[in-house]
């Protein structure tokens, strides 16, 4: 479903990604862990071209992002993205945040878009918040709205960029619960996270990144209980 081949990314003269190869299969949940500055967020952002790709190929359902003829807006509408800082639209109500994409990208009527949005709000446990503005929500609620906003486009793939890192500890659980539910329903997910518990419980595969490459990849069981690479061992000994 996602196929990454020898991906390089540089910011000016600093090379952040130094040749990444990865495959994500349909319905698979892949968690990306690693120290900060290891390039994991950049890697994720390359998967929907929020970062321009310096070299290499990223294929989403067979479409190569680096092909100049590819319709990037179309691909992005099939790839949902959830950000560390939520990035809700503060000038719109919760409901309008969710219906904007379906209405403007898929040209749905307002009524139809709301018929998509309301069940999603219910799914993330926020049906009573449809008409409020994001500023009145807690961080955890904001992030759940952001997830609903992505899901409204009915994406095939969901990308999560440290979705719980900006949350107060007691709010993390609600967001993770929604993500677990999604994983159970068979969503293809790539999750950059510091939540080792989530990676262990929900991930099908864990990628350990450091210094711009994937140092080790394995099932959660193997990587957490028996890491092979010394860098992985060092990292896990610090965070676990």
């Amino acid at each position, binding site marked *: 479903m996602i196929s990454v081949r020898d991906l390089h990314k540089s910011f000016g003269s600093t090379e952040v990604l130094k040749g990444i190869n990865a495959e994500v299969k349909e319905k698979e949940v892949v968690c990306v862990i690693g120290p900060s500055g290891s390039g994991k967020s950049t890697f994720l952002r390359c998967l929907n071209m*929020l970062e321009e790709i310096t070299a290499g190929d990223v294929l989403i359902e067979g479409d190569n992002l680096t092909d100049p003829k590819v319709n990037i807006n179309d691909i*992005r*509408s099939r*790839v949902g993205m959830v950000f560390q800082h939520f990035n809700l639209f503060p*000038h719109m109500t919760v409901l309008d945040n969710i219906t*904007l*994409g379906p209405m403007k*990208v898929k040209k749905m009527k307002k009524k139809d878009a709301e018929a998509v949005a309301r069940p999603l709000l219910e799914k993330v446990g926020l049906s009573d918040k449809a008409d409020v503005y994001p500023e009145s929500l807690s961080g955890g609620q904001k992030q759940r709205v952001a997830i609903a*906003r992505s899901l409204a486009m009915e994406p095939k793939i969901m990308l999560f960029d440290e979705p719980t890192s900006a949350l107060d500890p007691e709010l993390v659980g609600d967001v993770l619960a929604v993500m677990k539910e999604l994983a159970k329903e068979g969503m293809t997910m790539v999750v950059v996270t510091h939540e080792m518990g989530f990676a262990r419980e929900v991930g099908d595969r864990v990628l350990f990144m450091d210094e711009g490459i994937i140092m080790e990849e394995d099932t959660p069981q193997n990587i957490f209980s028996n890491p092979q690479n010394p860098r992985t061992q060092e990292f896990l000994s610090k965070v676990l």
Partner: protein
Amino acid sequence: MRFSFEQKRYRQGANTQMEFITESHYYRVMPFLLEGLVWTLLITFVGLIIGFALGAVFGLARLSKNKIIYGIATVYVEVVRGTPILAQILFIYFGLSDLTGLNIDKITASIIAIAINAGAYIAEIVRGAVYSIDKGQNEAGRSVGLTRGQTMRYIIWPQAFRRMIPPLGNQFVISLKDTSLFSVIAVGELLYMGQQYYGITFAAFEALTMVCIMYLIITVPTAVYLRRVERRLDV
């Protein structure tokens, strides 16, 4: 003429308070000034509407990654901000008619001058406001599949516009005052009409006092209102 009223009052006694008002220069200058005010406001409003359109286009152009578009917009902004508006109005009214042989009407020339001048300052207001919106907003819009244009229109612009309101109000006050410079090409705006009055009556103090009061009647409430808007945007 100037002293006729005092003489009259001396003759008739102090029973005519109404006359005291209606015969004073402060009162008699008003028909002139109200006519002038109409032109001042007309030039300011029409000029600023066009100026806002120019400012929006050039402000967004200043954010463009395209070097040519960025370059054109930057030249426009720097040329206009780097030259006095008095030179600009003379350039438009005399310079351009000289060059093209067209006879540009004074009011049109004034409106063009305000539009071009304010346009450059508004371009910087627009650029700053759009630039100040968190990059994550753009990323969130693009990642649901919106095009660049849609993201600008539905997400960035509405948020940026709110931040533009205080500086735009400020620009309104500046442009309103700048229209007084058009008296040099004999546009019948507020200051010019005041000058016309004291040219006939020599009542310069009274006429200019009233001219200033007329400006203040527009500018002070605007400033007060803007401060209130600003405070509301803060919280």
